[in-house]
């Protein structure tokens, strides 16, 4: 996958995640029940004691997280920007893992919106780690030039032959 395609894929996923987090934040502050096909599960999660952390709604934290991820993807690509994306997505993944644990083992209800956000954050974290570890993408044609150099190397004259 090219660096550009990878970046565009991540921007697309982060944008959808931003939409989900925006909706959940809106629902939290407006007090309306979230649209949910699994009965009242979403409301149960949203109104539980775990819907806030240190007084801050977790939906708002998710919104801020997605904004940070998108910002790190939209700035010109560099070692630092890839590091920033990796840090934000891994932190988001850790937070999603914590919330999913609470849904499954403390609240005993699963909110579809939260679950979809957790899936997106997991994909983003995986892609960001991959992108970060592979580093600077090769410039166009570099691979062909390297292969040409490799094939030319044995034909060089060798002393004493």
């Amino acid at each position: 996958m090219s660096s550009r395609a990878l970046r565009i894929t991540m921007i697309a996923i982060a944008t959808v995640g931003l939409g989900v987090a925006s909706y959940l934040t809106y629902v939290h502050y407006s007090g309306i029940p979230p649209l949910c096909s699994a009965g009242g599960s979403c409301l149960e999660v949203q109104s539980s004691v775990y819907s806030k952390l240190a007084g801050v709604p977790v939906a708002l934290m998710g919104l801020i997280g997605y904004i940070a991820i998108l910002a790190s993807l939209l700035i010109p690509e560099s070692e630092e920007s890839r590091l920033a994306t990796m840090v934000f997505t891994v932190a988001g993944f850790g937070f999603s893992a914590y919330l999913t644990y609470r849904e499954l083992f403390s609240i005993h209800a699963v909110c579809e919106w939260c679950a979809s956000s957790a899936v997106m954050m997991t994909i983003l974290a995986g892609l960001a780690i991959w992108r970060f570890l592979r580093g600077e993408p090769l410039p166009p044609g570099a691979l062909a030039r390297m292969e040409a150099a490799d094939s030319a190397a044995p034909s060089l004259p060798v002393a004493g032959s």
Partner: protein
Amino acid sequence: MSPTSGTDPDLTRKGRREQARSERKALEAAAAAQAARRRRMIQLGSVLGAVVVIVVVILVATSGGGSTAPSTGPTAKKEAATVSALLKGIPQSGNVLGNPNAPVTLQYFGDLECPICKEFTLGALPHVIEKYVRTGKLKIEYLSMETATREPETFRTQQIAAYAAGKQNLGWYFIETFYHEQGQEDSGYVTESYLQNIAQQVPGLNLPNWSAARNDPAFAEELKRDEQAVTQQGFTGTPSFLLGKTGGTLSKLENPSLEEPSDFESAINKLLA
């Protein structure tokens, strides 16, 4: 001497220098790439480690609501006094709280280890009891639904312990005291000594009779009936509620506020009107 005989060795030397230079560059590039990769791996490891530590800290911090040990001493006395003040003078029969002829019935499906049920117990429920149950307008029937309790056997034991107190018409004291003193979820706090401790706080409970009643097979049957009701209604979480006129068909009370009594008040007022 051929014209090329003098230049060939020069070209060879030049070629070798070029080759050596490109090899050196390739080695340097490989070393730089390896160093960068090592640096990235260290950075990734640091980030992963930091995130794991933060998540664990959050988990511990947000799990601190309850105690892992049964409440004893002044705290237990205070909780028992709160429960007594709430329930004193209200008739009980089995797992039903309130006047048996009350015009409206609320069925409350709960799990004694469910922290959200505790929210309800400390939030909306006392207002509903004071306003409607104490005045004889509403009766509340407690039914069991396993959600928070991980071990089915523990669930069965604790719920039957409450029903057994109900045999002495003191079941709601047991239920309320359990919720008030609920321990930390998944900590395995519900042991025999914990249940005994709760039972000892129920005013007027005959402990030998309570212990004997816990073996009554009728309660296991009652749990099965509760489970069938849960399946029939399609409930997915606790607490869940059915509300309606006594003797009539009860309907689901969807997503009421558990902290504020207003949703219960408006639904009950509608039935009383």
